[in-house]
């Protein structure tokens, strides 16, 4: 099992949710985060004082899937979310040791 972490532009969340739904992905967790990569910040002005906003608001989507599905999921995320402009985000894949469904006690692949 692998965890897929996708950091995406906030307005792309609905597209991503629909795309993953098409693959049969039934669960995910999102958080509101801020970040930057090679996309630099921009300057804003408040009462005559300039300030640099480095951290841009993003959404982080986490979902745990069967190892065989990873490439398909990455492909789907790219096609749903990619805009081609700077700041599209990144996808990270990490191994998962164990999963457990709290309601029933099912573990591992039965739980995702």
């Amino acid at each position, binding site marked *: 099992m692998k965890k897929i972490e996708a950091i995406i532009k906030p307005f792309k969340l609905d597209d991503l949710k629909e795309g993953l739904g098409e693959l049969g992905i039934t669960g995910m967790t999102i958080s509101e985060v801020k970040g930057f990569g090679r996309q630099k910040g921009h300057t*804003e*002005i*408040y*009462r*005559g*004082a*300039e*300030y640099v906003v480095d951290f841009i608001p993003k959404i982080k989507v986490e979902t745990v899937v069967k190892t065989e599905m990873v490439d398909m999921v990455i492909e789907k995320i790219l096609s749903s979310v990619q805009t081609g402009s700077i700041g599209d985000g990144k996808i990270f894949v990490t191994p998962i040791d164990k999963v457990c469904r709290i309601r029933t006690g099912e573990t591992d692949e039965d739980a995702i």
Partner: protein
Amino acid sequence: MKKTAWALALLLIIPTIAFGGEEVIEITSTTNKEAIDLLQTNLNYVWTLIAACLVFFMQAGFAMVESGFTRAKSAVNIMMKNLMDFSMGSVAFWAVGFAIMFGTNKTGWFGTDGFFLSGWGGPDSDPWVLAFWMFQCVFAATAATIVSGAMAERTKFTGYLVYSFMVCAFIYPVFGSWAWGSLLNGSGWLEGMGFIDFAGSTVVHSIGGWAALAGAIVLGPRLGKYGKKGEVRAIPGHNIPMAAIGVFILWLGWFGFNPGSTTTGDSSIAMIFVTTNLSAACGAIFAMFTSWLMFKKPDIGMSLNGALAGLVGITAGCANVSPTSATIIGAVSGILVVISVVVIDRMHIDDPVGAVSVHGVCGAWGTLAAGLFNMGGPTIKILTTQLIGIGAAFVWSFGVAFILFKIIDMTIGLRISKEDELMGVDVTEHGTHAYNDFQTIN
């Protein structure tokens, strides 16, 4: 015939029963005049007290503006300060301030009787002193609450309470007695010279603004406001819509502040409504354009401050300048406030809401403008008197407030510690958050 007779009898009996046994008041021109005068007096009471309600509501406006322009972690503290400014101010003005400002004033420098509203003779006596006190009380509280914005986010609450009481008990009323004492039982040296300040550009706003300046200087800037190389860093407010609502409430309240100062229910209030509104509008417009030119984008904070600047600027002359003059006074206020905010920031005096610029600087401008645009003609004497009043207000308010803040700083302490400031003054001074369900990142 019978029905008519009965109707006639009834018509005659009823008034006789109703008025039977009462004095018959002869209708003469004298009694008629007395009745009309009584009606006018009652109207004066009603107008003055409605205006007092509008000015009271400005406290909500100040609270919204100050909170909107500061961070979420200071919102509880700002609300407490605003609540106490009005509450302690009311008590201070009742106990001491009103007597100093409007009591019998033999020297021309301060009043000496009327403490604890002793000027009221009890329930069977003339209640005008009560209505007048109420109206003046909300004005005093306005001067006090101007300061809380400039001292936001880093002031020790106990220190602030001491100051708040002293403003309405002493600083505000003493200067007020010089300019407005004769509105009741007093008589001041400044008004004796013909000083024009109809609703208080100087008496209320500059007094508040210069005390705010003293507070901001004694306190020092918020942590991180000015960088190591001396650059000015932005600390953005947490709720711009809140600040905007605050400005609208203040604008509404000012329709009590300026026209209410007639304390008379007559048609003279019409022109005052107009001058007030036009000055506010031009203040907002010209502040917006000035900020647009200076910062390449029209700035909401500056535009909001501009409306307030226009209101402060017209407060002195609202009854003796024309509507056209009011547009110019407002426009200059709008330009002045933007420049003033930038200059004060460059001097490394941290004023989170622009209180010094809006109330101090534009209060002085408004007082001068009342002389310059006087419909009877600006004379050298008038202009000199205005300048003397402006100067006296600065020396008195800034001087006394500075000394007071220094004393507070050296005794109970005026500024919170560095660690407390990083945690947030809400938690350290009041043990709670303003937005308990929200995660605020700072």
